[in-house]
């Protein structure tokens, strides 16, 4: 098979999956008693053609880039990080703290510092389930989900009449970020902020990390065959902890960017489902860093268009979840797509990300 055909096939499956996903969503809309055409027209207007719609789509896509990369990096090590929401909160808390408490610092220092604080918070919060898996074999799917609930409670504890809450308002939020820590708006009149460039910049960095560094090699080796990696002297537990930390740092960065670029305050509704959406972004991108960009843009458009659609047609914005679920199914089940189209040429290998079940023994470590 020629290289061009292979490339085409790599693109075909995601495209087909997205179309089928939209189709599945249309069926759901139809069943709920609305015209899917009206719904999708409104969705499109809300995402692209309305005033400021496209900048708004980009604003929505920015966190998806970070979170999509976060999930994708975990996948490469065979880990399923569903803890993006928690790590996003952790990053948001740290960035917010740096953002309003650090005074008298020039923007050139303050902003990077606040972003870094967010990454650090996410790193630590992500590394915890990595460590729990390495040390005790606690499956990351369960621990990260539990940590999401813990982080949501923690955020509420801090900002809802807690130590980080703004004494001047009654609503649960931190004080406003100082201007020196805000990500500046880059399209006047819209909410589109400098985070866009940060997102575009992070993609090649993550690609390089995974594909060209020794850390990335370790991550891939562990993800592909932990036993062989261990025999070759790679510490599997340490690698798992590191990769979960990196994944968490990316999610934390998303939290920081949302606080510093969009809301200007930290509120308990910071996450609002974006972290879960990122699973679909990463799967659609096939865990490839560069492919995360278009995937994030697509989901940004869906999310951004969905609010307008809800306003116009009363169809819940939760419709996007259905579309996402369907997209994941089709991407993760090439066999299903092949069966649907009675094709023989679609790749048959099933997508395998996790090995074994929720109760596996911890990965054995060498003498430490």
């Amino acid at each position: 098979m020629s290289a061009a055909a292979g490339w085409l096939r790599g693109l075909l499956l995601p495209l087909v999956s997205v179309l089928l996903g939209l189709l599945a969503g249309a069926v759901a809309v139809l069943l709920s008693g609305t015209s899917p055409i009206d719904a999708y027209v409104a969705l499109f207007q809300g995402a692209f053609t309305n005033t400021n719609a496209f900048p708004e789509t980009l604003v929505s896509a920015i966190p998806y880039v970070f979170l999509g990369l976060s999930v994708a990096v975990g996948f490469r090590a065979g880990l399923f990080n569903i803890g993006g929401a928690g790590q996003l909160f952790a990053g948001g808390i740290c960035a917010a703290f740096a953002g309003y408490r650090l005074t008298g610092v020039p923007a050139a220092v303050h902003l990077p510092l606040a972003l870094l604080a967010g990454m650090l918070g996410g790193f630590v919060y992500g590394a915890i389930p990595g460590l729990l898996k390495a040390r005790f074999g606690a499956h990351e799917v369960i621990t990260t989900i539990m940590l999401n609930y813990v982080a949501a409670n923690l955020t509420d504890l801090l900002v809802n009449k807690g130590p980080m809450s703004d004494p001047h308002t009654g609503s649960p939020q931190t004080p406003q970020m100082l201007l020196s820590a805000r990500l500046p708006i880059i399209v006047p009149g819209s909410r589109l902020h400098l985070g866009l460039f940060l997102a575009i910049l992070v993609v090649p960095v993550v690609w390089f990390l995974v594909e060209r560094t020794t850390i990335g090699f370790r991550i891939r080796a562990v993800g592909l065959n932990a036993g062989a990696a261990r025999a070759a002297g790679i510490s599997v537990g340490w690698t798992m902890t590191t990769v979960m930390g990196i994944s968490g740092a990316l999610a934390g960065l998303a939290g920081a960017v949302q606080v510093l670029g969009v809301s200007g305050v930290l509120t308990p509704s910071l996450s609002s489902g974006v972290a879960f959406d990122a699973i679909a972004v990463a799967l659609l991108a096939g865990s490839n860093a560069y492919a995360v960009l278009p995937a994030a843009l697509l989901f940004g458009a869906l999310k951004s268009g969905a609010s307008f659609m809800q306003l116009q047609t009363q169809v819940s914005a939760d419709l996007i979840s259905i579309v996402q679920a369907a997209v994941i199914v089709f991407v993760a089940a090439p066999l299903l797509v092949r069966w649907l189209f009675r094709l023989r040429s679609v790749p048959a290998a099933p997508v395998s990300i996790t090995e074994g079940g929720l109760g596996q023994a911890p990965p054995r470590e060498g003498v430490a």
Partner: protein
Amino acid sequence: MRGGGEEGDRRYPPTQRSGVLGDAYAVDTGARDQTPVLALGLRGIVKTYGALRANDGVDLTVRWGEVHALLGENGAGKSTLMNVVYGLTRADEGQVIFDGQPVRVSSPTDAIRLGIGMVHQHFMLIPTLTVAENIVLGHETARRGLIDLRAACQAVTELAAHHGLEVDAGARVADLSVGLQQRVEILKALYRGARLLVLDEPTAVLTPPEAERLFEVVHQLTASGRAVIFITHKLGEVMAVADRITVMRRGRVVATTSPGESSPSELARLMVGRPVLLRVERGEAHPRDPVLRLEDLTVEDDRHQVAVDGVSLEVRAGEIVGVAGVEGNGQDHLVEAILGLRHARHGRVLLGSRDITRDTTRRVLIQGVGHIPADRHAAGAILDLTVADNLVLSRYDRQPFARWLIRQLTAVLEHARRVISAFDIRAESPAQPLGSLSGGNQQKVVVARELDGDPRVLVASQPTRGVDVGSIEFIHQQLVRRRDEGMAVLLVSSELDEILSLADRVAVMYRGRLVALLAGDDIESERIGLLMAGAA
């Protein structure tokens, strides 16, 4: 035993008919007729996996009452063929005729219904269940919705007694020895009324005395009219057990003969397609100072049972020390303890004068220990990475393959090209995934990687498992050459022939203990065989 006869017909599946031999467990094979019906006929079986033709038009006939050996190298297509017969794989083309009738076997259930039983190389037993549960699985009897395990135990005990294959029906399979587990497998097939029994490499896990006992059982089964297909790649066994022999090579049948009409060297030539040296050219060893020393090493398994029990051993520069033993007698744990992959409970591992007992695997490797893991797929290599990446798997982060944290891919590729040609690895490109190479070439990559690092000690665990004869010869020659250049080699192998042809000294392990250390003329097959079985 007569008492169980009538009930037996009811209890066991319908293919079990009361037979001509006046024995409830014997089989009706049509042997009374003037023209005996064949047990199994295969006509033009073809099975392809991608570009590989695993079976390329195979014909085979097996008669009732005979032991039919199916001989061939790894990858010759024996297992694929038998998986077709047992319904685990569907053939692309060809016909299966069982007991004179063309049949379609699309699942093991079909095979069982016909009276075909199979004992797989890797036992198909569920370790957490009891012997009786394993045997009745899929053919259980229930009373008022609940499973009748008492009846199952009784039936199994009776069946076992009849065939002289006694086993405790209530024991958990995980607690049985490998030999007993194989017995359970045979009983499982007989319980399902097997008239044709396929044994896939049945002696691979047995001690020589256990193998002898198995041959008796096999002859007893054929004496009762059953047919047995005996898959193996060991020539000696074929001569000892077979009535007729079919030799396969590269997916085709190359000859059908019998022990009387053939000889081991003739069979080897048929199997490999060219004359084969049955022994490696190997001169006298000139050992020097000890490099690796194990002192009273005790290691526990995952369940905290002692797996290696106070082993002391020395490997000197310029010698090959073989560790013989049936698999599962602690060899794996011994190797893991040396490599720092497992804690030693007690005792020391010394590399030269340095104590490396508590070092990490990484430290152990850096200090000059090479390791060819026993299981290539689980520990030796990463099939989804490229050949080049696999060749630096244990040195990926060191000069010249990485500078700081950045990998130097040019150096990695250059290194790969050099090693590929030096070790005659058949690969189109260093950038192709390792999984696209043949098993023999994959193993050569592992061996090349470890030897290329010039270790002071090489721990080679089952270094030729599952590879073709050509690769075996190559790997053996490499090991001997490195020995002559002064490397210390610890060779762990459950293939007695491999130990005999390579080792200068032989340590025999039995139940975690080193029961003997032999040198010179003491290295002799029968003696080691007995030691491996625990007979001192």
